């Protein structure tokens, strides 16, 4: 690797991306200071304090990762892949469960980590390496089989935890990276659309009643999904079928966002969040608090900053010195875009409830660290790439 002067090194530093990130981290603390104030009565700012710790440690992680040439990871590729599988297997043995899913590995008596968050980053690195020399070799349907087999083991393990949301994130990473890696758009796109259509049909058949002949023989089609996952999907299709569980959450979330109007009800003046009507308002549904208290102005600004962050990352991908770097960034962008789309979509009622966090904003250490590691990787690619194009 050729040595660059310090000045040139910093030229690869994408200030736009860093500014967007800084704004998001600041927004995270601001939002949490209103969204989590009524969660722990004994310490209203507990979540702000812990989030501050995650941010600081996350920044250190990002800087360290950025400082390391991402090329090193290529050499460790199969070690990383193996470590990833091991980590996900570990959850089944020492994991603690929450809401019917084993997702957490306890670290101390009060702290635990969520390996699936880190598994996403590890998958991105290994899959980027896997795809980087397959340029022009993804034109036929049979060419899709190997990449699919590559991502299948970790995805299945996540799915079995069960964590449908994160499994779908893996799917999004797979699709995004395959697309950027040059998969034949018509054939690959066809398979993706076909898969989604098949899934929806299967779910429909699973929950449907009173179907006409001959479809009635397919009624109640068994699915490899847990009851609560199916319920969430049912509720998404028809929220009125459940007003106390997820359907109720989504309904209250939509009311919260809608009632915010243009300017919002003001900092700490929302009713849905502050009166605890809205559940999980400091984690999965934190976007509803933004909508309620800061209005359309607030949600637009937040989404705009996210959009800038992702576009700046894509800019980094453009000037990456190699395919590996480009694909890493593409994976990170796909992951974050999917998170934002599903989380915000869920809060505003256009996506089913899957419980995946809003990057950088949702309170939580694993998610923050994983996202900061991802940023570190993107910075590492950027610092070693060509001069900025824009």
């Amino acid at each position, binding site marked *: 690797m050729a040595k660059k002067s310090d000045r040139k090194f910093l030229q690869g530093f994408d200030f736009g991306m860093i500014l967007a990130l800084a704004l998001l981290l600041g927004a995270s603390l601001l939002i949490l200071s209103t969204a989590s104030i009524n969660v722990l009565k004994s310490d209203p700012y507990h979540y702000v304090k812990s989030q501050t710790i995650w941010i600081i440690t996350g920044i250190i992680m990002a800087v360290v990762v950025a400082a390391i040439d991402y090329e090193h990871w290529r050499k460790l590729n199969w070690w990383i892949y193996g470590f990833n599988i091991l980590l996900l297997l570990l959850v089944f043995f020492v994991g603690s469960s929450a809401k019917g899913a084993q997702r957490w590995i306890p670290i101390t008596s009060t702290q635990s980590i969520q390996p699936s968050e880190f598994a996403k980053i590890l998958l991105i690195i290994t899959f980027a390496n896997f795809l980087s020399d397959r340029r022009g070799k993804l034109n036929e349907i049979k060419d899709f089989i190997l990449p699919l087999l590559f991502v299948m083991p970790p995805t299945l393990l996540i799915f079995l935890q069960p964590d449908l949301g994160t499994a779908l994130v893996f799917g999004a990473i797979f699709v995004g990276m395959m697309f950027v890696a040059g998969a034949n758009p018509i054939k690959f796109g066809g398979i993706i659309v076909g898969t989604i259509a098949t899934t929806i049909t299967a779910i429909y058949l699973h929950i449907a009643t009173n179907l006409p002949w001959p479809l009635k023989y397919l009624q109640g089609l068994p699915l490899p999904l847990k009851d609560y996952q199916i319920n969430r999907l049912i509720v998404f299709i028809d929220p009125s079928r459940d007003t106390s569980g997820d359907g109720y959450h989504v309904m209250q979330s*939509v009311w919260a*966002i*809608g009632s*915010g109007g243009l300017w919002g009800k003001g900092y700490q003046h929302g*009713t849905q969040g502050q009166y605890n*009507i809205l559940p999980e308002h400091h984690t999965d549904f934190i976007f509803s608090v933004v909508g309620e208290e800061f209005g359309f102005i607030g949600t637009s600004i937040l*989404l705009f900053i996210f959009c800038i962050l992702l*576009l700046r990352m*894509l800019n980094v991908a453009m000037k990456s010195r190699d395919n590996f770097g480009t694909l890493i960034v593409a994976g990170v962008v796909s992951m974050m875009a999917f998170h934002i789309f599903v989380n915000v979509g869920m809060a505003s009622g256009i996506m089913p409830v899957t419980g995946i966090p809003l990057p950088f904003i949702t309170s939580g250490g694993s998610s923050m660290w994983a996202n900061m590691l991802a940023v570190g990787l993107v910075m590492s690619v950027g610092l070693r790439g060509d001069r900025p194009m824009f």
Partner: protein
Amino acid sequence: MERKERQPYHRRLVGLGVAVVLIFLILGFNLWRLQIAKATYYAGLAAGNVMKNVTTPAVRGEIVDRNNVVLARSIPKFALVLDWTDLQKVNQDWKNVVGKLAEYIKPYWPNANQSVELITEDIFVMIRNQQWKSYRPVVIMEDVPSQLQAVIAEHSNELPGVSIEPIPMRVYTQNTTLGQVLGYVREISENEIEQFNQQAEAKGDTYRYAQGDSVGKMGVEKSYDAWLRGNHGIDSVGIDSNARPVDRVTLQEAQPGNTIKLTIDSELQKVVEQKLDEVVKNISLVHPDAQAGAAIVIDVKTGKILAMASRPFMNPNELIGVISDETAQRYFSSEDAASFNRALTGLYPPGSTFKMITAMSALQAGVITPEDSFYDSVSILGPQGIEEWGGNNFGSVNLYRGLAKSSNIYFQVVGRRVFEKQPELIRQIAHEFGLGVATGIDIPGEGTGIAPSPQWKKDYYKPTYDKRREDQLKAIDQKYSELLANTADEKQKQNLQKQKNNEIARVEADYKEKTQFYVDWRLFDSYNNSIGQGYNSYSLIQMANYVATIVNGGKHYKPYLVDKIINPVTGEVVKENQPELINQVSVSKENLEIVKKAMSGVTSGEGTANWLFSDVPQFSGGGKTGTAQIGSKGTSKGESYNGMFVAFAPYDDPQIAFAGVVEYGGHGGDTAGLVAKAAFIKYFGWK
């Protein structure tokens, strides 16, 4: 890397960029739809979610006496309140919450030995009892001690839906003083709603009563409820998911009720009550039946009531909240029920206190002059005449001496003359003085009474005997028409006809006899009614007002209890009751003076109550004793008498009039007279 090789990557990255922008556009458009296009719709939904309107109770107005001494007021007490509908909403195990609550309140529960399980059961019963008005929180405990308030606050997280709320409670500061006049407050019953709404309407009030309102159940509390009540406020309360109020916005301030200022002098009232109590206690040693009595002091120039007492006394505080069976029995169902206002509702034969009416009627009819005198002998009355009390003979009697000695024979003679000359005059004069007509006093429940006359007797009893005769004749007719129809034999028919005629004749004879006795005015009626016996019965308030009307120059005022209604915030007088002249009596000023003078003879010289004021040299005025014959308790033996006494003072420019009764008290002067004396001494400040 060569740029050429990477070119397709760039295209794909641009494609990914387009996808990213597209995602944000989709999200942004959806947010625009929610937050701009349908913002008002969702704002309404979210508001309905957390804000609910609750009424805040108005503080009921005070009742004060003429010197602003507080008799009734509302003070906030802290009540333990359970909003169980909200509790059920947030907590599936709401019954456990009630159990936990029972544990915390056990040390403060009124019944100390009750187990937690039983307290829990009691709370469930309270909730069940309130189910039909479930929107209202259930009051578990009134007047929560501060230690318990602290305990509840400390454990508020375990007790969703439980809160300590200040609620106004009615307190009668003087306890038994004026109890029956003040009345008491309890929750409105369903059949009262209409009645109270009419009261509000009459006042021009838009308020409509509803279940759960507290209203006056008797006395001033009842008749002035629309003024005392105030108006509920409305608070918009934000409720969190634990059903605890977290935010409160007052939409409408609660308006406190008006202050009611009575005409009553509570110091005078106390003296009257104390004396009445003492007198009844003393007399009950001789007459065990004597337990009850009443007294009234009235301002003769206005009709303002200064004191109104009724024994057994009522403490309205005992009728707030939970009432024990024993208390209920004492107040409502016992023979001497304490909630019964004897001065207002009780009807008593006036006895000799009626004799001024007879005197004035005789003077008006011109059948006597005051100086006309004759020898006091029962022989001049004939066989139907009534003897003097104790078989006395007062020698030569005229009007003055007749009234002073309370001569039955004198008043029978003059009464007979009046009834013969103008049969309806005594009733008419009695009515002019307010006897036997509703006074229109401003508290509910007054008795009307009867001032009899020949026409009254006929109207009152004739229909009964007419109907009886008619029924009997009809029965005979039916009976014989059947018998006659079944008989062919001519001779037998004639016999039956004869029998029928006999039976009819018997009925007619019976009717004639009964009519002569019970329908037609008899000489005995004239005698009996002239001395206040017979059909006469009046309320004590009528008696007091009648004396007032004699001594104030014949102005018959409407008696009243409420002087002013005052806005407690501004001090402004909202309403002031003015003395209301009902009529000027037809008795001439001279004749009124004659009777007034005669009454002064009762309390002086050789009068029946000459001893009463002998130790009070300041006294000038007059009175009249009455010892009205009634059946004794449980029997109808004519040995029991109500002691009745009426009086006024001073003689020149009279100020106040008094009427009092002690049931089974014997002589009026010895009993009610002592109460009058105490009242006068207090009122005029004599020592």
